[in-house]
């Protein structure tokens, strides 16, 4: 096990998969010599040359469309979109073309491609550079959506995404790039569609993903001090969703809180809360409480007030425990 930063883990995954598979190439703005806006593609140009490391114009629709056409011909593109907030710029290619290609063409063509994009707040980057839009994509049949919270998962999930025969939206968190964590040595793959129990507990289940995991683990410690043992589940994948992992935990705890950074209304927490409330009504001892951001764009200077934090999670758990 070595300690790696999240962004470095992503970079390692790209190096390894490009070395392993000749058909993998990376494409995006500034991914070449500059190594990407956040350093994710550093060293790839030197290692694999211009043929497989493609700097592009600022043309997100062309970039994502190009990835689809190349994938239909058997290549495995890894697209970098500099901020997840720019996904709307190429939304048609992602949703109407990439996600539907296999279906529309009756399986004649597939779209084995990965789109990497960092979302989330924490850097005071303002309303157009801080959004968490994962709920949109989880609602789109044909896409797979992952959201790693740790360096190990960032590496293992990216490697799995590149090998996957379906299009995978790989949502990174820009405020996690500098965070460090242990990453297994050698070949490290994390399966898409499998959640991870980050903390075992018996009293309440807290489901979360991406950077929110930090606030949730912090909350879990606080709660432990007051005698509440929370089980923390990191979804890692949103689509497909690991229903079994969530249900198994709730079977044990009979209580559930769902916490994410995105706007609460119509966020991914709604699907999980609805699913569990519908299918586990006999198991639940209390309501499923959701934690998410208020119904507003991400404010530039008021992020700390806007972003959900450990205290919000603690309050939510206390509410559930009251039942």
């Amino acid at each position, binding site marked *: 096990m070595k300690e790696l930063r999240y962004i470095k883990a992503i970079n390692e995954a790209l190096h390894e998969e490009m070395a392993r598979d000749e058909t993998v190439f990376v494409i995006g703005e500034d991914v070449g010599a500059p190594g990407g806006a956040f350093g994710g593609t550093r060293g790839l140009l030197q290692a694999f040359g211009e043929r497989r490391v493609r700097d592009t114009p600022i043309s997100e629709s062309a970039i994502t469309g*190009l990835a*689809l056409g190349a994938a239909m011909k058997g290549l495995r593109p890894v697209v970098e979109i500099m901020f997840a907030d720019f996904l709307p710029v190429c939304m048609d290619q992602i949703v109407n073309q990439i996600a539907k290609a*296999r279906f529309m063409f009756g399986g*004649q*063509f597939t779209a084995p491609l990965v789109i990497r994009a960092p979302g989330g707040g924490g850097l005071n980057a303002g309303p157009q550079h801080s959004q968490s839009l994962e709920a949109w994509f989880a609602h789109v049949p044909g896409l797979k959506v992952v959201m790693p919270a740790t360096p190990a998962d960032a590496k293992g999930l990216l490697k799995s995404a590149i090998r996957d025969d379906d299009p995978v939206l790989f949502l990174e968190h820009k405020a996690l790039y500098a965070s460090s964590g242990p990453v297994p040595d050698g070949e490290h793959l994390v399966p898409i569609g499998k959640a991870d129990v980050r903390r075992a507990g018996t009293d309440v289940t807290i489901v979360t993903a991406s950077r929110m995991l930090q606030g949730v683990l912090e909350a879990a410690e606080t709660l432990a001090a007051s005698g509440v043992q929370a089980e923390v589940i990191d979804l890692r994948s949103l689509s497909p969703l690991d229903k079994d992992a969530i249900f198994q935990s709730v079977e044990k705890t009979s209580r559930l809180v769902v916490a994410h950074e995105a706007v609460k209304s119509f966020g991914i927490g709604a699907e999980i809360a609805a699913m569990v409330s519908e299918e586990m009504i006999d198991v639940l001892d209390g309501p499923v409480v959701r934690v998410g951001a208020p119904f507003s764009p991400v404010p530039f200077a008021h992020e700390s007030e806007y972003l959900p934090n450990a205290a919000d999670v603690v309050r939510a758990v206390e509410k559930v425990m009251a039942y």
Partner: protein
Amino acid sequence: MNESKPITPSSPGKTSKSSASASGARRNDDGFLDLHYSMLRVRRVEERLLQVFSEGKIPGFIHVSIGQEAVASGVCSCLTPADTIFTTHRGHGHTLAKGMELKPFMAEIFGRANGSCHGNSGSMHVASKEAGVGGANGIVGAGMPIALGSAFASAFKGEDSVTVAFFGDGASNQGTFHESMNLAALWNLPLIFVCENNGWAQFSAQKSYMKVDNIYRRAEGYGMPGVFVDGEDVLKVREGMQQAVARARAGLGPTLLECKTHRWFGHFAGDPQKYRPSNDLEQSRNIDCIANFEKFLVDSEVASREQLDAVNARLNAEIDEAIAYAEASPSAGAGQFLSDVYA
């Protein structure tokens, strides 16, 4: 070069693989009979589609390209099965001219299980991997970025195959056109942008959506050659395309080929075209790329009327068979479409 030179019967050409080339081809044929077969096949198929559609046998809606066959056939006559085309909502002609089998084509439009897309998609999304048809597209302008990727893959693999992105005059005002032209030029991709300029976008005339008359002039702004040809003259289309394909295969990069043509029918089958000035419709109908070419073939003694009629008869039989096949084909089983969502 903005105008392709007037055609000469001796202009260089390659013979494509269509089943017609065998029958009655002559020394001085130069692929003419293949072009004729290809155009007539498109027209007869679409005429029959209009008919069965009006009989309520086809779900959804369809867009036909009748009157525009010279573009589809002229362009595709320069391609091999290893080349790929991406087309539009009005893609029957391109798809057939590229060599797609009629049965899976018909079955898809009829929405049957053995359609090329299992009935998931219909007329607007017909595709054939085998024939090198990367798919029709229901989103105007969306095919061009995808075509970029196909051309990129050819270059990436070191193959000399080329890609064609068909699009309309209306689509030329979509942002995807711009981004795709710039990137194709920048990377010298083996891609030919074929603009089928029929002067209409759905219910609107060209002057209502762009100030300039010609799309090919936009090519210069990207550092790409722009070529204009008479899209009603299949030999001029072929000649313009041959040069574009030669450039692409030689690694010299993309070309924008604008083919001026005319829409004979409405935007979609059943469109009464109330919005369309009757003289515009008449003028369009007065130009028949197939009749003109047949006259040329007979006058220049490449083929006799009888030969051409025989081709027509053979086509009608082929189409009858394909439609019977489609109608007799089963719908997909319950929930079967769900298995096409993910690999």
